């Protein structure tokens, strides 16, 4: 089935399949990149949520309800709660955080309500911190941050999502312990142990942050991350270390008189402040890196699409060019082959000058056409020559025969006349001899007349073989006969034949002779015409009242007025090799059929021959 398809269809199929392939590939690429971009966008959302949560942490850890006036305090608490609920409504849709956020918000409201008892504050703070931490972890999980694929951002998100909340949680717990110890005025052994444990935990968390940072730095090539974070984290570590060192000293030697809470307050504030700063910086960096990644992905996607588009266009261009250079020339080739077959015009050539296979095919095709044209030319010239020779031979033989038949009595008349004259010229004329000569002359005269009569009879004899003849058919028949002459002399033949032409009763062979003569004469009359078209027009029409008119017109050299009077005379010819019998015979044939044959000069050139024949059918049929 495939082999029967047109080449252009095949090319189209090939091209379509290629385009589909490219489309599928492109779709895969775009989808993959889109997934990565969506992934990173979700991370960005998580980071944004964490920013709000950072504010919550800062508020929980730094604002003591007692430190500020109630109005201001409730205002700032409201602002933070609003920010939290807005973040949840804006961003929480993507994350499963609603429940945790509500729990945190409830705890915060309780914490910041003016009714809260002082001794319950720390418990509430710890509760809020725990809930905030849960929220942070959930945000990390749901916003894909914990699944981050890049080294730098992975470690950074670990700091942002896990480490820093844990750190702040632990700092908050430690401060609560310190405050409780200071309020009680003593340091119970249990509290001391807990402080030391917390100290260890804090150190390990800080170490975790450090090692994560180092890993993050390693994972980032251009060092911008280290530049942005190094100072801030160094400060945080420094303050944390000094705070913890002081705490350890206090726990070690101030066992009896308890801890001085106010002495720790400034250290605690700077640790929390630095940690929040570090968190903020890390988040900014994380944001920056994520956005960088997204724009990188977008850039790659755009670049890939550009490349695919260019390559696709190129391949379509190649397909179009292939179509133009293979299919189109092939179609032209086929068209010319068909035209040649239909019109028999072997002078057509395909115009294609490439050196590819098609070009060579075109050259071979043209060569073949030339061969054909030459062969045809030879065949035609042989054919026309043969027809001409046979026509001339027939005519010559016929003329010679007629000439001999008429010459014979004429010669006898002359000889007898001479003999008679001689007898008369004698001194003693022998009138008997003269008489005999004269008698023979008379009988020879009759004989000559009989010869002519028998020639006429020869034409008339054929009248018994008359039948219905369609002149249109006859025109086609004769056109086929002179086709070779027409082609070789580059004559354009135009036939205007009336379809419903009535038949004539005639001798087909004789009428064909008339057509042949008129058409060959016309063609030969145009032989020397070079500066205008050689047009042979044959027309058939009805001639009122009940005849058929045939017109044979040429654009040849025409016939002069003096010649025009004589062209139908026997032995009159304007041709160098003519015998002057053709038109005379034509006229006698037409007249024998009860018709008329005449000629007139053509307009603007050439000459026109007309003949009229009565239409009719053979009666009794």
């Amino acid at each position, binding site marked *: 089935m495939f082999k029967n398809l047109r080449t252009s269809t095949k090319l189209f199929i090939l091209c379509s399949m290629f385009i589909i392939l490219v489309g599928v590939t492109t779709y895969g690429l775009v989808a993959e990149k889109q997934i990565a971009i969506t992934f990173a966008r979700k991370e960005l959302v998580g980071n944004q949520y964490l920013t709000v949560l950072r504010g919550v942490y800062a508020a929980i850890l730094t604002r003591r309800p007692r430190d500020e006036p109630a109005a201001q305090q409730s205002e700032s608490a409201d602002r933070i709660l609003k920010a939290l609920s807005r973040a949840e409504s804006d961003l929480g849709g993507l994350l499963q955080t609603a429940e945790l956020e509500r729990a945190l918000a409830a705890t915060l409201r309780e914490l910041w309500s003016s009714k809260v008892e002082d001794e319950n504050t720390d418990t509430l703070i710890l509760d809020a911190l725990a809930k905030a931490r849960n929220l942070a972890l959930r945000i990390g999980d749901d916003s894909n941050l914990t699944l981050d694929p890049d080294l730098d951002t992975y470690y950074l998100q670990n700091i942002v999502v896990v480490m820093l909340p844990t750190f702040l949680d632990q700092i908050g717990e430690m401060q609560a312990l310190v405050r409780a110890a200071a309020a009680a005025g003593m340091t119970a052994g249990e509290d001391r142990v807990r402080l030391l444990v917390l100290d260890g935990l804090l150190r390990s968390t800080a170490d975790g942050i450090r090692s994560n940072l180092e890993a993050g730095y390693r994972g980032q090539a251009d060092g911008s991350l280290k530049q942005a974070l190094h100072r801030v984290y160094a400060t945080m570590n420094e303050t944390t270390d000094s705070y913890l060192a002081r705490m350890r000293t206090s726990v070690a030697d101030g066992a009896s008189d308890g801890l001085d809470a106010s002495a720790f307050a400034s250290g605690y504030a700077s640790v929390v402040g630095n940690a929040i700063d570090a968190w903020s910086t890390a988040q900014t960096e994380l944001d920056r890196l994520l956005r960088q990644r997204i724009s990188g992905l977008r850039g790659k996607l755009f670049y890939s699409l550009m490349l695919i588009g260019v390559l696709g266009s190129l391949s379509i261009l190649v397909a179009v060019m292939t179509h133009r250079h293979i299919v189109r020339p092939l179609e032209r080739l086929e068209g010319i082959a068909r035209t040649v077959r239909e019109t028999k015009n072997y002078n057509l050539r395909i115009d294609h000058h490439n050196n590819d296979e098609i070009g060579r095919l075109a050259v071979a095709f043209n060569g073949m056409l030339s061969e054909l044209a030459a062969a045809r030319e030879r065949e035609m010239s042989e054919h026309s020559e043969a027809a001409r020779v046979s026509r001339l031979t027939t005519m010559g033989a016929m003329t010679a025969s007629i000439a*001999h038949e008429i010459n014979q009595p004429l010669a*006898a008349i002359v*000889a007898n006349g001479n003999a008679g004259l*001689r007898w008369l010229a004698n001194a003693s004329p022998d009138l008997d001899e003269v008489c005999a000569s004269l008698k*023979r002359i008379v009988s020879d005269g009759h004989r000559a007349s009989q010869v002519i009569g028998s020639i006429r009879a020869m034409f008339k004899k054929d009248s018994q073989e008359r039948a219905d003849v369609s002149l249109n058919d006859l025109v086609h028949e004769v056109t086929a006969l002179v086709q070779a002459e027409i082609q070789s002399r580059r004559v354009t033949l135009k036939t205007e034949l009336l379809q419903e032409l009535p038949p004539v009763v005639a001798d087909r062979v004789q009428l064909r002779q008339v057509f042949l003569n008129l058409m060959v004469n016309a063609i030969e009359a145009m032989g020397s015409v070079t500066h205008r078209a050689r047009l042979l027009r044959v027309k058939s029409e009805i001639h009122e009242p009940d005849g058929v008119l045939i017109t044979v017109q040429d654009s040849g050299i025409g016939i002069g007025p003096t010649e025009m009077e004589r062209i139908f005379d026997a032995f009159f010819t304007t041709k160098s090799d003519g015998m002057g019998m053709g038109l005379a015979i034509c006229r006698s044939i037409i007249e024998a059929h009860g018709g008329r044959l005449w000629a007139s000069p053509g307009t603007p050139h050439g000459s026109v021959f007309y003949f009229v024949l009565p239409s009719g059918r053979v009666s009794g049929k």
Partner: protein
Amino acid sequence: MMKQRSEAQSVVFVVDDDASMREALKSLFRSVGLHVEAFASGLEFLQSQRADVASCLVLDVRLPGLSGLDFQTELAKANVHIPIIFITGHGDIPMTVKAMKAGAIEFLTKPFRDQDMLDAVRLALERDCTRRQNDKATSDLKARFDTLTPREQEVMAFVTAGLMNKQIAAELGVREITVKVHRGNVTRKMGARSLADLVRMADLLGVRRSKA
């Protein structure tokens, strides 16, 4: 007067299938006093009894059966040396050349002028007359030559070849006096008035022998 007499004896043969032409030619030749015999075909002519007098043949090229030209060839084969005048309705050059090469006197195209025909006939008859006289002279000579003995014929051949008596004697292995006797006999029998006369006779007879 000689000529008139010879023409009176001579006869013109006409072969033409056209009766009227035949009659016209007969009438024409009769009007100038020539004796005429006409035939419709070559065969009739051959079968006729012809007098052994000076004659010529007026022959139509286009004849039923054997054509005029073929008939000419046939006559030559049959050793009939009659001068021929061809007449034709339509003569082309190859035909004319062929006829003239085969010894035709004239080739006339119908219709011909009567004077041309008469001139041609006169020429033909004169030729025939001359030929006949030559033939006759040669046959007289031949008769006389036949009266010679074989030895005398040999001697005549040597003599006319220009050999001296002595040489002839040596050739024949006879004595010179014998040669002289033979030579005298030859000259007498042949009726030669001189050696030159004898040489001419030998030429006509074709007996001259070249030196060995």
